[in-house]
Structures are given as C-alpha cells and as structure tokens.
C-alpha cells in the first residue's frame, strides 16, 4: 500500500474512499477466506469487514491512538474476533415462547468494540511475560492437568507446577490491573 500507515488511520476516520478501497482490495480477500472457511458466506464477510472498519473508526474517534503493530494485522484480528463473536452468538439464541430481545445495533457494536479492546489488552500483557510463563499458562488455560504438565515440561511435582503457574498468573493479573485501559473497560 502506498499510503503510509500513520496517515492511514486518520484518512480512514475521515471516510477517505481511496483508503477504504485500498483496504478492500488488499485486505478483504484474506478476511473473506477466513470467514468462508469458518461457516460463513460472502455476505457475512462483507458485513464483518464493514463492522470492523466502523469499530476501528469509533475507537479512534473516542480516543486517538497510534498503532503498535501493522494495520493489516490489527484489522484482521478485529474481523476474526467479530466473526468468532457472531458464531458464538448464533449458538445460543433462544426461541419458542421466550421473547427475543432485539438488541439495538449501536449497543451491539459498542459491546463488540469493548470486547475487542479487552482481548487486545489481554494478548498484549501475556506477550510481556517470560517464555516459560507463557508456555505454562498456555497449557493451564487449555486445561491440561498439572500432572501432565509435570511430565511435559520436566518438573518434579504437581505442587511445583501449581506454584509456578500461580506466580505467572499473578504477574499477568498484576500487569492487566495496572494498565489504565483495564479500568476503562471493566464493568462498574
């Protein structure tokens, strides 16, 4: 893309058609193929692409930020998460006698935006830990039993693993709580 990344956000926020077009040509195919491979169709992928751009614009409007990584990775993760969110929602709608509440679109977009921000914050903080902690926590969150972690990573006892994981998770918890963004997106 010829547009420098630092200008890209600002131009996007101002509704610059050229920028949107470039993004569509360059980024949309990847997004579409992700969604087609995950139970979606073309219309879904267009919907997600549009919502992701709106989400990024809204975030920038409410608090101008500079990107730490690449724009395409940023957009892709927003799209990927929006689609995961949608699949999640489809799984648990309730019909029959219960009245379905029609969530207002703006409410839903807002929730999705805040969820995305939380997701980004948590990923960023996990990346700051040592490789050993990351590895341990990855196994922990995938619910691998302590005794299997002992074998896999060559520790002595369950208890050593449990203690080590607790330390890592404490560090992670502390990092998250310390970040000012966490206080903005946690419930009152």
């Amino acid at each position: 893309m010829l547009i420098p990344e630092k200008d890209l956000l600002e131009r996007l926020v101002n509704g610059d058609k050229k920028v949107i077009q470039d993004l569509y040509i360059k980024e949309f195919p990847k997004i579409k193929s992700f969604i087609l491979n995950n139970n979606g169709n073309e219309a879904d992928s267009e919907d997600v692409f549009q919502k992701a751009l709106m989400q990024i614009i809204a975030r920038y409007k409410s608090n101008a930020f500079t990107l730490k990584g690449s724009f395409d990775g940023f957009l892709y993760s927003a799209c990927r998460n929006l689609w995961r969110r949608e699949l999640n929602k489809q799984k648990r709608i309730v019909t029959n006698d219960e009245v379905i509440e029609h969530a207002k679109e703006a409410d839903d977009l807002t929730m999705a935006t805040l969820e995305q921000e939380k997701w980004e914050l948590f990923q960023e903080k996990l990346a700051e830990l040592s490789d050993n902690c990351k590895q341990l926590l990855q196994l922990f969150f995938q619910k691998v039993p302590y005794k299997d972690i002992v074998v896999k990573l060559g520790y002595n006892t369950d208890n050593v693993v449990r203690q080590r994981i607790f330390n890592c998770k404490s560090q992670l918890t502390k990092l998250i709580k310390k970040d000012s963004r966490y206080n903005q997106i946690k419930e009152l």
Partner: protein
Amino acid sequence: MKDYPIEIDDYLSGNMSTSEKEAFETRLLTDIELSKELKLQKDMQKIYEDQKWLEEDKEILKTEKAVKLKSFFESNEAKSLKSTIDEVISENRATSTDKTFWFMGIAASIAVLITVSLFVFKDTNYDELYASYVHLDEIPSLVTRGEDTNKMLEDAQLLFEEQKYQKATELFTTYHQKEKSIDPLSYIYNGISYVELNKFDEALSQFQLLGDSNTLQAKKANWYKALIYLKQEDKNKLKEILQIIVSDSDNYKYQNAKELLAKID
C-alpha cells in the same frame, strides 16, 4: 507475588469440597472485591483459552467509554461512513478476480439465458427464476467442524441434502420444539424444505422466526420470503417485499432484488 486470591483457582477448577465451595460462594455475595477478582480470572480463562468468545455483560454499556462509543455509532457521521464503506464494497465486488469470478460468470450466463428465454416466450417463468436465485450452496452448513453438532441437526441436514424434504421438516420441527438454543440456520433449511413441499405458509413462518432472531442471519429473512412469493408466483407480494429490500443498499441481496424486480416488471 500474590495478586489475586489463590482460592479462585481452586474454585474455578473444581478443586473445592462442597463445604468450601459453599463458603466461598457465600463470601462472593458480600465481598465485592472478591467477585471482581473472580470476574477477571474468568475473563482471563475465556480469552486465553481461545475457544470461547468473551461476551460482556450489558452492564458494561453504562461505562463512560461505552457511552462515548455508542453515541458515535448512533451519529449521522457514523451512518455516512458506513454507507461509504458499503459503497466501496459494492463497487469493487464485481471486479474482484478471485475464484468466485468463474461462478459469477456461470451464474451471469445462466441469468442471460433466462433473460433471453423471457424475451422469447414473453412470459415470466417463475420456476426458473426461483431455481436461478435460490442458491442452496450459499447456506452455511449446520455441521460445524471440531464442535459438537446437535445430532438432530446433522441428520436433518443430511435429509435435506438427499432432498427428503418431508422427513427433513419433521426432524427440524422436533428440533425446534425440543431445543432451547436454536441454530438460526435451521430456519433457512426448514423453510426451503417447506417451499419444496409447496407448503408456503409454513415456509413463511420459518422465515418470520429467522427475521425475529437476534442474529446475523436475521437480515436474510426478507430475501427468502421473496423467494417464496416467487415460487408461489404471487407477483404483488413479491414486488412488495423486493421494494423493501431495494430501499436500502445495505440489505441482504440488494443487487439480486433489484435485478429480479426489473425482470418481473
């Protein structure tokens, strides 16, 4: 380095005795700090597990940040940005050169053939139009890879694919009665099965349910209703619903609706 109470781990992993668990839950009722800590640890589990999506409580909409975001999403500025993005999507859609190009080419030539035949016979063949627009391949599968799929749904989809529509509708009906959590795609499958059986009222009610469901699929309801009227050869109702679809270029199948409207007139 204690930055959260370790008993939360025991609680979440089910490593508490019944009495410990009860005591912990009693504490949760009064100890706000503890319940906040629990929420954070639960969020971490969900996000890092990378299987489920963390859907926030509606309470979060009351935060200052949420109010700010929401007022943006509701603004006219957001509306106009949204239509700019949609414009770009629809303008570029036709010129994309990936593999769907060939399918579109084939679909276009079928459309041309149908249009030609319309001119030749000077009579709108609704059945053929229905066949050219229904696109069964566009409906996402009910069977999700790597996840537990409801056995009833799996069987029903199979019946549908084998064109055993009567049996399929019976199974979908049982599914709708028995399950509390309904996959919205099942309405599409069931609705089309009813259309194939020429039971149009039943079909319509399925798409009504789809339209009322609070999901991404809901926006497809009008298009499927249009297909029913097409199959029924109910020109007035067909026109009515197509008009609704073409009233906003954001609507699902906007282009197709425009095309179809031109063809039947």
